């Protein structure tokens, strides 16, 4: 127990508190910008059982903020790479890696095995899934979200407190809200916000201080302004989720929302056979000499739909994957259903064609 000496000598924690930490089971959803600092501090604190679920692999652009990973983790699944690093940090805890996607089917049984759930995901679809599964399994949820230089943190479903849906009842339209990979984020920001999440997890286990329940914290790293906004429990919103409990595991994403994942990486795009690439950048006057690519600036897209070969699968790209998402919505509105938006934008496509 020498490892935990600085905890044990705190009168507020002591040996008894440290045993509570060692007996706790915490599941972290997403080992990304938020998940990494959360996992690092929870493993160091001696949380006895840590679960990590993430389907994604480590890429170079993650290293700017996802502090559990290094050069040797590139290309490896994040849950597995995080487990490997954390096992070196603390050999006396047990760590379970789930290299898979969280969905309605696996969430409920997985959540039941843990005491506290931490949301470190990067999209609204998964955030609402995590929140709903926490309501159904009655697990406290330590939530955070980040945007460029700002973060928001709260604890939901804690001792009859409010849930995420009491704050934001319905998911926003996905295409309107860019995530870190599209808009950028200050690398240290998830470090700050994830550390706040880890603090709340430890406070919940130790029953220490005031838990951030019934309030959402907004924090801005540019001016260090923070606001604590009160959130009230909405029985109506929570009941709507509880009513789904019986069929929750069968709520396949495909049934719930018909929109398939149209936001793909270059690697995923290249698995398609008959591709027509569409460059929708408005500001490029450079003529691209690859017959597979057609150029239709976004603002003229609707007037030029006839140029699109409907027998092919459309992979649309712009600079950073935001305008191309909007373009895909337009194509789908016009029944061009097999259209996909490329996450990382033109740079990657050009690189690929040059080296083909």
């Amino acid at each position, binding site marked *: 127990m020498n490892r935990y000496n600085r905890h044990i000598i705190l009168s507020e924690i002591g040996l008894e508190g440290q045993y509570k930490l060692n007996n706790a089971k915490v599941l972290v959803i997403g080992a990304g910008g938020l998940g990494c600092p959360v996992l690092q501090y929870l493993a160091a604190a001696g949380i006895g059982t840590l679960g990590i679920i993430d389907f994604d692999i480590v890429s170079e652009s993650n290293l700017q903020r996802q502090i559990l990973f290094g050069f040797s983790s590139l290309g490896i699944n994040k849950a597995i790479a995080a487990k490997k690093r954390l096992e070196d940090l603390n050999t006396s805890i047990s760590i379970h890696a789930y290299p898979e996607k969280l969905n309605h089917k696996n969430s409920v049984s997985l959540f039941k095995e843990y005491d506290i759930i931490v949301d470190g995901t*990067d999209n609204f679809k998964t955030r609402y899934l995590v929140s709903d599964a926490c309501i159904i399994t009655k697990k406290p949820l330590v939530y955070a979200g980040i*945007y460029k230089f700002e973060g*928001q943190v709260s604890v939901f479903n804690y001792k009859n407190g409010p849930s995420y849906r009491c704050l934001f009842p319905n998911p*926003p339209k996905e295409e309107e809200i860019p*995530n870190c990979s599209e*808009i950028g984020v200050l690398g240290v920001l*998830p470090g700050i916000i994830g550390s706040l999440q880890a603090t709340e997890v430890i406070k919940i286990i130790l029953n220490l201080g005031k838990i951030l329940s019934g309030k959402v914290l*907004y924090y801005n790293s540019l001016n260090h302004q923070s606001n604590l*906004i*009160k959130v009230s429990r909405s029985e109506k919103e929570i009941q709507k989720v509880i009513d789904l409990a019986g069929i929750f595991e069968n709520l396949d994403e495909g049934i719930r929302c018909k929109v398939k994942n149209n936001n793909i990486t270059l690697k995923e795009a290249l698995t398609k056979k008959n591709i027509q690439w569409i460059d929708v950048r408005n500001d490029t006057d450079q003529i691209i000499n690859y017959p597979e690519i057609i150029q239709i600036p976004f603002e003229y897209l609707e007037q030029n739909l006839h140029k699109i070969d409907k027998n092919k699968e459309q992979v649309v790209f712009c600079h950073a994957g935001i305008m191309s998402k909007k373009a895909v919505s337009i194509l789908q509105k016009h029944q061009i259903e097999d259209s996909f938006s490329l996450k990382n934008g033109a740079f990657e496509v050009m690189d690929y064609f040059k080296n083909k």
Partner: protein
Amino acid sequence: MMITIRYFGLLTEVTGCTSEKINFSGTTIFDVKEVLFQKYKTLKNKDFQVAQNNELNTDKTKITSTEIALLPPFAGG
């Protein structure tokens, strides 16, 4: 009266500022939103909650503070 509106997250991309003072003559949150929707056409498509005195409000809530905050959800992680 003059009230200060504070914007968070991606709403600052719509308004181009993190806070501003507006001259306001209405009585409810709904009225404030109407003024802002007039000023920023795309704000209407964004999801956000409105708070004053650090509490969430509905459209019907009366304005009692000189500072209103517009709070969107953050997706990033």
